[in-house]
Structure formats: C-alpha cells, structure tokens
C-alpha cells in the first residue's frame, strides 16, 4: 500500500500526522491514502487534492479538541490496550490538569499570586499606554531630528523676525508661531472657542507637514492685503461635516470671514493636540508684541552639534541690531533645543518617574509570586522527591512547575488587562498631561503587551523555584520529610526576595514621602489672595470688538452677576494671579532720573478686583467712584515690592508714574504682594490699573465672582448662563475656581504626589503580602520546633517575639538597601521637588517607619498563629 503510484500532497498529510494520536495514526493515514487514490481515479487528481485538503483542515479543530480531551480525561480506548499512544503534548495536558487541580485546592495562594501579578502587569500596561505617545511615538513631522526650537520661547516679536527672516545661518527655514485662539459662532448657538495658533507662512514647511486636503500656508499668506486664510485640524474638519468641499469655504472666525485652505491629516498636532486651527496674520515689521516662539529646520548636513558657530553668528547679528534690557535679553543663554524636548520635555520626568515606579511594582509583584511559589515548592519537596525517586526527570518536574506558573500567568493577564483598562483612566487624569490626555489611548496592543509581560514575568518567577529544585538534594528531603524537617533549608532565597521587595517598596514610598513634603511646602506659601469661595469664568471676545465695547460688555455682565443669589462681589481682570507670566512694561517715576526706568508687571482690573480676590490693602485706598473713566492717565495701585524697591523710605502715595499706558498715573494705594506669576516666583513689582482709564486691549479676560456659598463651583453654572445671556458675543473659555487654579499652580508636583502615594499604597500592600507569606511559611515549617519549645515551657510571648523579630530584621535590611537606592534614583524627581533636597532624612525616616510597621504587623499574624497551637496536637499529628 505504501508504493502506490499516486503521490499524496505532503502538507495535508503532515498536518494529519501531527494531529492524530500515535496509536491510530497509521491506519487512518492508510485509509485516507486508499480513498484518495479512489477519488483520483474516479474524479481526477484536482478533486482528490481538494478532498484531502478539506479532510486535513476540517479535521484540525476536531482533532485538536480530541487531543486535549484525551489528555485531560486520560481516556484510552479499549482497543489500544496493548499499544497505548497518547495524544501529542500529553504530558503538558496532564500537567495542566494537575496544576489546575492544585491551584483550585489552594485558593489563597492562587488568588494572591494572580492578583499580585495582575496588579504589576495591569499597572505597567496602563502606564505604557500613557508613556507611548509621549516617549516612544514619532512626532508627526518629517525628519523631526532636524527641527529645533529657539531659546526664550514666547519672547520674540515681529520686528525681530522680519529683520532676520530668511537670513539665519545654518537653517533651511525658520518659522514663528504664537497662541491665537479664535471664536466661532455657528447659527444661534453660543460663541465657541477654538484653540488655535497664529503662525508665519513658512511654519508648515519647517515642520515638513503635508495637508490631507488643500494646501498649507505659502509665501504671501502673512503679508498686508493677503486674503485671510486658515488651516484646520482633522477633528475640526470632521465637526464641520468632513466633506472635501470645505476647501475654499469661508467660515466666520472672530466675526471675520476666513477661507479654509487646508485640512491636516488625522494624528497631526502642533504644538500640542488641543490646537484645532492655524491662521496667519499680516506680520508687522515694527511689531513689538513679543509673544512668539521660533522653530526652524536645520540646513542639510547640519546637526545640533555643528550649529554652535551659526548660533554665535546669529546672536551677534541680533546684538548689532537690537538693544535689550536686563529682562528678555536674547543675546544671553542662546541655544537651540530639539523640538521633541521642547514639546514633550515638561511631561517626560513625570511619565518616566511613573514608569519607573510601575516597573518597580512589577518587580515587587514578581518577587512576591516567586516567594509564594517557593513556599509551595518547599512544601512539596517530599512530593517532588518521591516523584523523582520513581523516575521523574528534573526536566519533567520543572515542566510541571512551568505549567502551573503559566496558568497563573494567563489568569494574571486576564485580570491585569481589566486592571490596566481601569488604571489607565485614573492615570490619565492624575498625570500632568494637559492637552496630551486626549492623545493617549487604551488599545488592544496594550493587552498584547500585558500578555507578553505576564509570560515573561512568569518565566522569570519559575526560574527561582526551579533553581532551588536543581540545587536541593531531593532524596535528602525524603528523609527529612519523615521527621517533618525540624531544621529545614535556610530559605535564603526566600528571605532574599523579601529583602528585595522591601527595598523596592522603600524606593517608591520614600519618593512619595519626598513629594508629600514638597507639596505641603508649596501649599504653605501664601499666594496673597483668598482662594476659597471664588469662582472664575474665563471669557474671550472676538477681535473686532473695541476695548471700550469690551469693557462695557464686561461691566454689564458684572452687574448681572452681582444680582445672583450668594454672590458678594465680582470683578474682571485681563489676567489672574497664579497663572504664570503676564504682561509687563517699563515706567518712569516722576522725580527719579528719567533714564531709570522701572520694570513692572501690570494688570488692568475692574474696581472690585481687590475685594473679590481678598487682596489686602497696605496703604492709601482702593479704586472707588472718584476714579472716573478717562482717555489718558488716572489712578494706579502698586504692590509692596514696588513700593519697597522703588520708594525706599518714602511714601509712595501721591507719586506719579509715566510710561507704559499714555498719560500720568498717580499712585493711590499699596496692596499686599500676590503671586502674580508662578507660586514659587520671586516677588516682582506689579501695578494695577483701572479698566476704563487703561484700555482692556486683550480680547481675553477673566471674571472672578466671590460667593458666600460653601462651594464656589456651585455658582459656576449660573455665572456661565448669565454671561451667555448678557454678553453672547463672549465665548466662555473655561469655568473654574480659584482653589483649582491654586491646585494647578502647585502643579505637577501635586499630581505626582497623588500618583506616587497611590503607587506606594500598592507597593506596601504587596510588600505586606510578601512578608506575610514568607514568615507564615517559616513559622509553619518550624511548627514542630515551636511546639517542642512551648511544651518545654517557652512562654508564647517569646514565640511571637522571635518570629516577629525575624520579619522585622528582613524589613530593616530591605529598608537600608532601599534608602541607598532612593538616593541614587531621587534625581528623577528633582524637577518636582520644592524646598526639600533629594536626600531628605525626614522623608526617609517616615518611609522607613511605615515599612517597618507594616513588616511587624504582617509578621505578627503568623506569629500569633504559631504561638496559639496546642503543642500536644502538633507533636501527635506529625
């Protein structure tokens, strides 16, 4: 039958051969051959081939199931009594079955290992989902390595740019951009805000970004008389209908029609994913408004390393042309920064720190499961020894452990994926991602990653018990098993794992402690305002409104807001404290030398501003009804720093300032210092001007409302509706509260603290489980030992003390190692720390105390159990 003339296609036969049980393989294949030949003779070779393929592929699922079933049930047909031939992978299937039975029989061990591992995997996966776009994904620009940003972002002006445009050495092109949010009003709906950027015509060429539809800006789009045009993001395009006819259509932005010339592809962003529209504006060669950022593409062959001579030439070029005061001197600290660092750099430390913390937790989890499994292996020493004595090879015994670990790993992957999905959402909110939170995404690749990590971790875990299997003298354990192993093996590996676990936990806990300390110091700073009970509505008006119209509308809105229940006062300002930076100019004090100009931040506010924010008056008076609107000049209020710096030993009240806004300004009052910029900024001279006397020239304004309600946020909805009703031309940018602004000013450190605190809780739970597991296993193994001592009169308190001190010693060693590690790793947190060094004894002491306490508690439970057993019972039972 073997030498039939018709050859069978090899592949399907091989497939069947693999899948059929050995005992029946030959007969089935022989029958198939016969039938194949018959079909070939009757209906032709092609039909026969098709038939064979159908048989092989159609059989595969059934045979796989059958194999598994035979292995699982151990079923062997009667007919095969004298020629047993189990299914393929029989030993693996039996092992899986055995492992599943063992795991079911030890629910605590199973649940603890699966949960521990799942926490590690889930957490790491969740962090990976966030870290991926920030750390690993390429930027949506061609050859992003060639794109660099200039120093002093947000300080360049149009005059400078027009001067050196196209002449900067070493660059293919340099473009410029600044914030340029727009309002859009569609139909009768309220005015909407579109986050946008104003860019110079060459910007998209610098980025090497191509549109999905239409074109990007080109030369001539940013000169006087050019048609107003806009490029929109994919998301905005979808919102506007997503049809190709958008190109050339006019949309009304800021009350002015603009032609849409291009749509950027999905996934394009610049400079962050919240931006939805890019526009150009005629650039003014005399424009002194310095709020632009520069970005350039290096000329071919240039790298950041070779740019130094070009940078020097460029600096001397601007040095020749422009004069700078001490603030904003662009000839100082000149350098180029890779665009990736500029755009993503701020988030990177947070993400990296979280990534590291999560990796540590995964390590702790692995150590934990390894310790748990090790306990299991030791408990099974006699079983393994008997099996090895009966002829089981070490490979076979290892295989069984591997299968058990894989089952745990699969369970952990499933639970971990669920945890990752949940954890991802928590992390996305907790991390200081800002506009980036929208670009991170939980997806199925993450599940694959979780699975890979689980399997990798599990194999890692298996290595540990297996090495002890190789090393240990199995036959010796039979004899010691009979006497129940009064002096079992040292368990050095197990103890080592606990020490490592504690050390890793120490890293996270002390990191969290450092942040807790620095955040509490940040909150202890007095920002100079009363943040409680103040609601904030940020509004934006379209650009075609004059500053007088804008002020009138704002005042109407304020009057309406004052009538709301619970509202005590309301005010508006062009910029609120704690939100960083702000406008500044130089003024001249009458009576001082005229060349001695004074740098001051300035704020244009309405009359109730100080009362509403709770800013204290130190001298003179606040704005009142005697301060009437004027075309030029009027009253000004200065802060304490201004007074101290520029009127030392003098009374500033009644003195006059010129410069800045036109006219002469009389100082009428001095108020307490307020953290106008960032919370931790040095105090700067600041002057406050009354809206109406000074123009509210910015189209953005913040309305603040002080309320008597316990929760300032509860007034927000009313306030929003009121503003929408009274001034429908204002787009509401954001509604928030002053407390939230303070939280934001405390900034990433606060979010990192919350996150690391969460993670340290996790690390501590895992550490406690590890200590508990190891100590209870020690205690159980020496049960007989303790029983004899108790029978001989050892007081139970001594038993407890000895066992607990064993646990405490492990923790102490781990803590010491952990402190050393923390000193090395705390550098990661430097950018979040305020007022504490990376080596902070108080933080370390607190973290050590917490971990020691947890170790003692975790060891106490098994200790107590060991001390309460009846020695007579133990001795009899063994």
């Amino acid at each position, binding site marked *: *039958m073997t030498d039939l003339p018709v050859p069978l296609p090899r592949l399907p036969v091989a497939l*069947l051969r693999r*899948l*059929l049980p050995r005992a*029946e393989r*030959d*007969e*089935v294949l*022989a*029958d*198939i051959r*016969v*039938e194949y030949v018959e079909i070939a003779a009757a209906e032709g070779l092609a039909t026969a081939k098709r038939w064979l393929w*159908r*048989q092989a*592929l*159609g*059989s*595969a*699922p*059934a*045979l796989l*199931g*059958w194999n598994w*079933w*035979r292995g699982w*049930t151990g*079923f062997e*047909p*009667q*007919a*095969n009594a*004298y*020629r047993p031939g189990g299914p393929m992978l029989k030993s693996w299937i039996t092992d899986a079955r055995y492992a599943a039975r063992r795991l079911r029989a030890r629910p605590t061990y199973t649940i603890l290992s699966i949960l521990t591992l799942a926490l590690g995997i889930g957490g790491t996966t969740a962090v990976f989902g966030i870290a991926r776009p920030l750390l690993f994904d390429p930027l949506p620009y061609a050859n992003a390595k060639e794109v660099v940003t200039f120093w002093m972002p947000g300080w360049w002006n149009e005059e400078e740019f027009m001067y050196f445009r196209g002449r900067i050495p070493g660059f293919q092109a340099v473009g410029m951009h600044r914030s340029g949010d727009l309002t859009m009003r569609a139909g009768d709906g309220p005015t909407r805000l579109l986050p946008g950027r104003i860019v110079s015509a060459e910007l998209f060429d610098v980025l090497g970004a191509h549109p999905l539809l239409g074109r990007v800006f080109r030369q001539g789009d940013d000169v006087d008389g050019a048609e107003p045009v806009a490029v929109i993001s994919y998301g905005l395009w979808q919102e506007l209908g997503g049809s190709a006819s958008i190109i050339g259509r006019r949309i009304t932005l800021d009350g002015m029609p603009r032609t849409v010339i291009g749509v950027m592809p999905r996934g394009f962003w610049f400079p962050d994913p919240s931006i939805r529209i890019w526009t150009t504006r005629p650039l003014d060669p005399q424009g002194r408004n310095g709020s632009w950022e520069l970005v350039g593409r290096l000329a071919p062959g240039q790298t950041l390393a070779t740019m130094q001579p070009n940078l020097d030439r460029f600096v001397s070029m601007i040095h020749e042309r422009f004069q700078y005061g001490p603030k904003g001197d662009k000839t100082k600290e000149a350098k180029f920064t890779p665009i990736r660092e500029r755009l993503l750099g701020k988030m990177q430390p947070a993400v990296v720190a979280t990534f590291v913390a999560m990796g540590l937790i995964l390590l702790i989890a692995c150590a934990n499961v390894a310790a748990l499994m090790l306990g299991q292996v030791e408990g099974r020493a006699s079983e393994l020894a008997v099996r090895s004595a009966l002829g089981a090879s070490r490979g076979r015994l290892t295989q069984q452990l591997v299968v058990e670990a894989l089952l745990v790993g699969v369970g952990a992957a499933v639970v971990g994926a669920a945890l990752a999905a949940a954890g991802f959402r928590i992390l996305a909110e907790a991390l200081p991602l800002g506009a980036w939170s929208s670009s991170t995404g939980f997806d199925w690749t993450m599940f694959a990653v979780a699975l890979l990590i689980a399997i990798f971790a599990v194999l890692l875990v298996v290595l540990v018990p297996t090495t002890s299997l190789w090393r240990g003298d199995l036959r010796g354990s039979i004899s010691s098993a009979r006497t129940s192993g009064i002096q079992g093996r040292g368990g050095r590996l197990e103890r080592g794992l606990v020490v490592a676990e504690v050390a890793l936990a120490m890293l996270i806990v002390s990191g969290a402690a450092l942040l807790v300390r620095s955040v509490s110091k940040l909150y202890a700073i007095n920002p100079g305002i009363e943040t409680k009970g103040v609601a904030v509505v940020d509004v934006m008006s379209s650009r075609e409104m004059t500053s007088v119209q804008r002020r009138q509308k704002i005042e109407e809105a304020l009057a309406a807001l004052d009538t709301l229940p619970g509202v005590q006062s309301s005010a508006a300002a062009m910029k609120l404290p704690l939100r960083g930076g702000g406008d500044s100019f130089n003024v001249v004090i009458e009576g001082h030398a005229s060349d001695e100009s004074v740098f001051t931040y300035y704020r244009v506010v309405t009359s109730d501003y100080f009362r509403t924010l709770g800013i204290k008056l130190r001298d003179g008076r606040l704005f009142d009804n005697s301060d009437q609107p004027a075309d030029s000049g009027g009253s000004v209020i200065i802060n304490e720093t201004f007074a101290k710096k520029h009127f030392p030993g003098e009374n500033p009240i009644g003195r006059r300032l010129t410069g800045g806004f036109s006219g002469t300004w009389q100082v009428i009052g001095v108020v307490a210092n307020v953290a106008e910029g960032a919370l931790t900024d040095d105090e700067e001279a600041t002057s406050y001007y009354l809206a109406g006397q000074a123009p509210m020239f910015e189209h953005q304004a913040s309305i603040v409302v002080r309320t008597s309600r316990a929760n300032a946020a509860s007034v927000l909805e009313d306030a929003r509706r009121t503003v929408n009703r009274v001034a429908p031309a204002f787009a509401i940018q954001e509604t928030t509260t002053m407390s939230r602004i303070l939280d934001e000013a405390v900034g990433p450190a606060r979010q990192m603290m919350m996150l690391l605190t969460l993670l340290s809780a996790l690390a501590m739970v895992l550490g406690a489980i590890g200590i508990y597991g190891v100590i209870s296993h020690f205690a159980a193994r020496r049960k007989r030992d303790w029983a004899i001592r108790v029978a001989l009169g050892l007081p139970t308190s001594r038993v407890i003390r000895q066992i607990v001190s064993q646990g405490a010693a492990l923790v102490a060693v781990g803590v010491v190692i952990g402190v050393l590690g923390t000193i090395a790793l705390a550098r990661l947190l430097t950018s979040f720390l305020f007022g504490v060094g990376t080596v902070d004894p108080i933080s370390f002491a607190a973290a050590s105390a917490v971990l020691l306490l947890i170790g003692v508690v975790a060891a106490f439970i098994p200790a107590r159990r060991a001390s309460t057993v009846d020695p007579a019972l133990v001795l009899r039972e063994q």
Partner: protein
Amino acid sequence: MTNDPLTPLGVLEEQVLVAVLRTRGDAYGMEVRREIEQVTGRDLAIGAVYATLDRLEQKKLLTSRRTHGAGPSRRLFELSARGARALAETREMRDRLWRGVDLEAILQLRVLRTSY
C-alpha cells in the same frame, strides 16, 4: 432507562452510531465516515468522526477492539447494549415528538403558493 442522561443523542452521535450498525462488523473510522457521507450526502472530516467515536466509547455506547490479520491493524467499533438502548430511546423520543404533527398541509400550501 427513560431518565438516561445520555439521551437524546446529538445528531452526529446518532449518525455515527447508526453508521456503525449499518457497516455490520466492519466499522472502522474511515468506513463510518464514508457510510455517513454516502447516506447523508454531507462532507464529513475524519477528525470529527474519530473524536465522536472516542466520546461514544467513553460513554460506553460503543466498544472497540483491534483486528489482527492481514493488512494494517484496525480499531473496529461495535454497538454496546447501552448504545442500542440509547439509539432506541432517541428514536422513540423523536417519534413521540412527531406524533400528531402534520407537515403535509403546510408543504402542500407552499407548493400551491409557489405555483401561482
């Protein structure tokens, strides 16, 4: 036997059991497959047949033994008493189900409708 959890048999199980009977003492896997295929006209994979045969043997509805003679050794199947009972039971259950059901009327109606 009316409460035997083995009945009613699955469709493939029933077909396999009947095919074992029909092949009369020559019931090995491939032959059973061929028998079912010929009678039902349905393409059947050998793997599915073997898996079913094994399952039926485990349930003790079939017994298997090996032939020793010329040609390759084969696993031959025979219906056990229990298997025969299960078949009878399944068939009886089906007959009970069909009692008093008149499909003809509906089929006739269909024929009438489609002919218009």
